[in-house]
């Protein structure tokens, strides 16, 4: 499987993250989106006329929507990540995959504006993103009341992976996450998953690693 990828793209990171979590090896093809605008070059437009990344190709299959790529990887290698096989749960996952596109179009566009000087009505984008973040916070707090730490029940699914990047990177677009305690705990749960990988702007949980010695207390005692 070849992933046409850009290190700073949260949508590409969705794919890299899921692949890492399920142990799927991808051949990464770096696209010079910024500053090169290579995603708008003829060869890339031939692959994806929409001029966006990521693009995943596998055996003649060409996928140009990151949420479809998540679905493909999970179905291919790790079906548990599609969510429980019930009508309600499948719909819940699909609902969040669509919601993830709202995050791309609001928080993602605000970040591209603030960081990479992309055009956009920044106040409108932040307004839409705030609305989406509030919806997510409400849903996650409802889940917590039922003992669920993820978007579709008690195990992570592609719904979480689709929403996580643009939420975690919202501060890059001038959207502080301070007001959202349930989002903070959910992001923590995702970052604590076995096999989690980071992208620039998202730090790993250093707390998962023990403090390297020698501890200062020991030195103090020795000196006393």
């Amino acid at each position, binding site marked *: 499987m070849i992933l046409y990828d850009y290190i700073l793209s949260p949508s590409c990171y969705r794919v890299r993250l899921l692949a890492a979590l399920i142990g799927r090896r991808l051949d990464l093809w770096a696209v010079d989106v910024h500053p090169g605008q290579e995603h708008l070059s003829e060869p890339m437009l031939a692959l994806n006329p929409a001029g966006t990344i990521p693009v995943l190709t596998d055996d003649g299959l060409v996928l140009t929507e990151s949420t479809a790529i998540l679905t493909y990887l999970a179905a291919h290698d790790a079906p548990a990540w599609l969510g429980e096989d019930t009508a309600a749960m499948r719909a819940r996952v699909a609902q969040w995959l669509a919601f993830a596109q709202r995050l791309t179009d609001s928080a993602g566009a605000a970040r591209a504006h603030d960081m990479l000087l992309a055009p956009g009505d920044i106040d409108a984008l932040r307004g839409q993103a705030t609305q989406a973040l509030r919806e997510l916070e409400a849903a996650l707090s409802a889940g917590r009341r039922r003992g669920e730490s993820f978007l579709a029940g008690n195990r992570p699914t592609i719904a979480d992976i689709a929403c996580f990047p643009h939420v975690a990177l919202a501060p890059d677009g001038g959207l502080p996450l301070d007001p959202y305690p349930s989002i903070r705990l959910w992001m923590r749960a995702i970052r604590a998953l076995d096999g989690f990988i980071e992208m620039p702007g998202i730090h790993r949980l250093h707390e998962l690693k023990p*403090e390297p010695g020698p501890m200062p207390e020991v030195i103090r005692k020795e000196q006393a």
Partner: protein
Amino acid sequence: MGMMGAACSDPCASAPTPDTGDTVPTDWTPAALSDDIPVASAAPGQLGPHDLAIWRSASGRIAAWADRCPHRGMRLSHGFVRGERLSCIYHGWGYGEGGQCVRIPAHPELTPPEAIRVPVFSVAEASGVIWVAEEAPDGPPPEFPGVVAFRSLQVSAAPEALAAALGGTGTVIETVLGGAQVVALIQPLRGGAAGLHLLAPEGSDPAALDALSAEVEALRRRVEAAEEMTA
């Protein structure tokens, strides 16, 4: 810049830095819900003009510190908790009991000077709420029997407007919302916003709490729309 041994410091550096004319609350202020800051985690908070790093150690100890690393000013609420220490994400300086710097990774053998200390605020937990104060208040924060912590939300409206919408005044309002008897704690935030920490009846079933959640979201929409009209 003078240096004291390997590390240098100035006691003035550790004084809290009031930088606005806002009034600082003198009694306890609600800052977060206990369940929202589980063991070994940190979160940002506010108290009047001060930014706080509120964090809980691995053993469950809660602390509220100035959200500013004495080294190069990084927000400590972005840091990480290992055991009983909060470490800064920038250069990993570790701080323990009382805000004292106990580890500087760039100089692993060094015992950091006593003067490297993060300003510490008073903090206490009651009824599932984390309360903070600048000076230790005379008594403990209030307990509210029969209710438990439910949700914290931020409202882009003045605390007074939020209180009025809840049918009360001040910062502690007991009222009925969505058919439930609730306690609403209002926290003044900078930029004309308000924090709303809501306590709901003990033993409510999830569906009743979902209804309450929807009710409070609706209330927030109304308050913010009204605020926008007057702005």
